[in-house]
């Protein structure tokens, strides 16, 4: 073997994914006027943030983090969010839709309106408020079928709508970031990562994630076929409902009343990965949001401006 002489080296799939994501982020920074990174504190956001730090090192990532808050995230998420902003040296912007604040919109009383107002409307308002023209998001193509066909640079009209029929062709690693003043771009640098890639990368790079991803005894109730965690005293218990301590963890994180837990004993990252690999249900099954509105619900939400 003349492997040493030839100096060629097969990049691993994670090295290639990493290099691609970094390339995408640098293109945005070079061509956008006012970019921002949407930070949801989940595992995908954690990887995206880590990639941003790699892309611009030794500079801190030259854009702020934006958390579109619903006030209903898990407490652990708020804690990690503040810690990561400090560690990365980036500015953290937290936006809460003032109308939703005023009306006290919550997932228990308002159903789909909750996601609509806090997340979809909140995001649009935040982007308009700060005048961001490109927003990084941590969506992956393996998550959901409408995402499987979305571009890395995804165009939004002046009123933030996505038009799946009219996407720009995206060839090689050439991204077209040109747009008119009122339009904006959602950019997905980890489009080509899978759930396993994300976990593997977190493991290899020792990236901090919310402890809720690991199993622990937590107070839960079973409701409509889902295991919900009672994260604070805002959780309205129904008659006959008594929180039960169960060893649970979460595969995805969102608003705690909308996020189903799985019973698990996986306390370490390898154990979590092990469980994920042996599991038989897809990742977003624990999320209510994908289901209301039928089969194409995510696509519909995206068209309306949801990430």
């Amino acid at each position, binding site marked *: 073997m003349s492997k040493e002489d030839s100096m*060629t080296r097969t990049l691993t799939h994670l090295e290639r994914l*990493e290099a691609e994501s970094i390339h995408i982020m640098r293109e945005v920074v070079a061509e956008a006027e006012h970019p921002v990174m949407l930070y949801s504190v989940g595992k995908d956001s954690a990887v995206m943030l880590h990639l941003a730090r790699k892309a611009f090192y030794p500079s801190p990532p030259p854009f702020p983090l934006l958390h579109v808050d619903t006030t209903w995230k898990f407490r652990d998420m708020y804690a990690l969010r503040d810690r990561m902003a400090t560690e990365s040296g980036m500015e953290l912007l937290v936006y809460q839709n003032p109308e939703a604040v005023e009306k006290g919109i919550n997932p228990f009383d308002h159903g789909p309106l909750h996601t609509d107002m806090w997340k979809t409307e909140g995001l649009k308002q935040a982007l308009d408020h700060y005048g961001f023209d490109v927003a990084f998001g941590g969506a992956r193509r393996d998550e959901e079928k409408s995402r499987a066909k979305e571009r890395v640079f995804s165009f939004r009209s002046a009123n933030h709508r996505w038009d799946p029929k009219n996407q720009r*062709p995206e*060839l090689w690693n050439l991204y077209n970031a*040109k*747009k008119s003043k009122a339009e904006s771009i959602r950019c997905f640098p980890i489009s080509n990562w899978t759930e396993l890639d994300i976990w593997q990368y977190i493991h290899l790079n020792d990236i901090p994630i919310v402890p809720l991803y690991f199993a622990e005894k937590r107070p839960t109730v079973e409701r409509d076929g889902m295991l919900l965690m009672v994260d604070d005293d805002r959780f309205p218990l129904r008659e006959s409902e008594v929180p039960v301590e169960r060893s649970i963890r979460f595969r995805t994180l969102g608003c705690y009343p909308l996020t189903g837990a799985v019973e698990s004993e996986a306390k370490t990252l390898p154990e979590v990965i092990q469980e994920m690999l042996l599991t038989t249900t897809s990742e977003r099954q624990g999320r209510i949001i994908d289901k209301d509105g039928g089969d194409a619900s995510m696509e519909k939400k995206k068209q309306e401006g949801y990430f």
Partner: protein
Amino acid sequence: MTDPIYQTDALIAEDIDAYLESHQHKSLLRFITCGSVDDGKSTLIGRLLYDSKMIFEDQLAALEADSKRVGTQGQEIDFALLVDGLAAEREQGITIDVAYRFFTTEKRKFIVADTPGHEQYTRNMVTGASTADLAVILIDARKGVLTQTRRHSFLAHLIGIRNIVLAVNKMDLVDYSQKVFDDIVADYRIFADSIGIQAFTAMPISGFKGDNITALSPNTPWYQGKPLIQHLEEVEVDNIVDQAKPFRMAVQWVNRPNLDFRGFSGQIASGTVKPGDEVRVLPSGKTSTVSRIVTLDGDLAEAVAGQSVTICLADEIDCSRGDVLAIADHPPQVADQFEASIVWMSDEHLIPGRPYWLKLGTQMVSATIQPPKYQVNVNTMEHLAARTLELNGIGVAVVSTDKPIVFEPYDQSRTLGGFILIDRMTNATVAAGMLHFSLRRAQNVHWQALDVSREAHAVMKNQTPAVLWFTGLSGAGKSTIANLVEKKLHALGKHTFLLDGDNVRHGLNKDLGFTETDRIENIRRVGEVARLMADAGLIVLSAFISPFRAERDMVRHMMPDGEFIEVHIDTPLAEAEKRDVKGLYKKARAGELKNFTGIDSPYEPPENPEIRIDTTKLSPEDAAELIVERLLA
């Protein structure tokens, strides 16, 4: 499903750390599947996902229900439904688009670009193919090589995919017949040769039954190759090939956190780099030495093609976004005019001469496209005359940029040879292109410096070199007048040479026919020869119909300013046809000669020729006299 390729469950359950260790060393192969639903493409992808356990229980439950409801496979699972999750969107009238799917085996991770096969989705297929290392071209064993097989192969080859797998599918429906398979492969080989595909790997499979997918099938004992998955696991990825090429990195961003640090960030397009390497910044040509390769995980001793890094140089030299860092003694070319293949991707057709944004690597310049030299019929590979390119149209045209750009031919570098065109009004991406070669070299290209320069050649001959380019209809009198001009110049002691169409075709261009491309190539070669002769100090006379402005302009741009003298031998068609010295017009009118200029192929007269000869007013003798006068004036 007891296939060892996917049998990782045991390891996952018993020793997750060992599994993770093995998993993190997997390489990545990106491939594209080409074929229509009828060829079993969706079934094949569905099977790959299913066999590699990429389908979860909830998805499988939905699939089983769908299979019974609308499936075409009786009570069996219809894998096609899994992939055609886009079917719902199709019903809503959404453009069928590239979908990316992911699966993994023991040895590799895979990203499949699942692209639609119909002609109206050519642009989608090109998009999916642009990032692929390999293409799986599906053929229905019952149908053999079809028009769409040819189209898919042409597109895959056009976009530069080196690894082509010809998957002859549905072998179960032809009783696993070796003869059927061999005949299809032989058929395909003839076609592949004709479009320049040098090698491909053929395999008999059944996506539905699973033959030769993960393991060799007992149904095809005559098949000596590998099963599909094994081939996909072992084929060499482009990344390895790229590492063997000279170092190039397009600078994306200058990293300047403080006054003490200045690094150049980019993704290495080809080659390898390490501290101490001498590099050149293009287009300026300035050189420096790599001092550090910086990453968050620490400085690197070496970086290779595909990696995103930040490079620091030993000297404070100018370098910014759009520049290219390259190995100093083997830099890429810099030019501002090119021949390129263009795939049009917009509903609004190409407008020749209109400025578009051109993005190549990290360079963004303004560019204009000349009317295409020809368009390719993607079904027959015929070259057709075209004035523009419509949606999904593929053609070859001259691209001019408003300033020189750093580039490499596409077949050497996807990164420095592939570009997109952007509409300046709508900002839409309207086309993708692949540069073939430059037509006009920019000044800071490093030519082999010759001690005896072209000026020295000319001085010794006591003349100014020139190319007199005679253009006009067949029978206009080009050769006659050019001959007279040469005689007169010769008598005056000038060093001349006459390049005549017929003579050149007996030798230099005897491999060329009379198709559109061949005629263009004919002119290009003649142009190059004329240029070399002018470099040697000669006065060159070329007599060619050369009906298209684009080609004449191409030759004009090969020459130094003022040395190309276009002589339009202007004879009306009626007059030329009346003379019909060689009897060609009669044949053309009778339909015996195709693509005859003036009859069924256009002649584009020069707009501003240096010299125009009206043969209805001037005799050949007088015309020659006039040309000599003007030349020596």
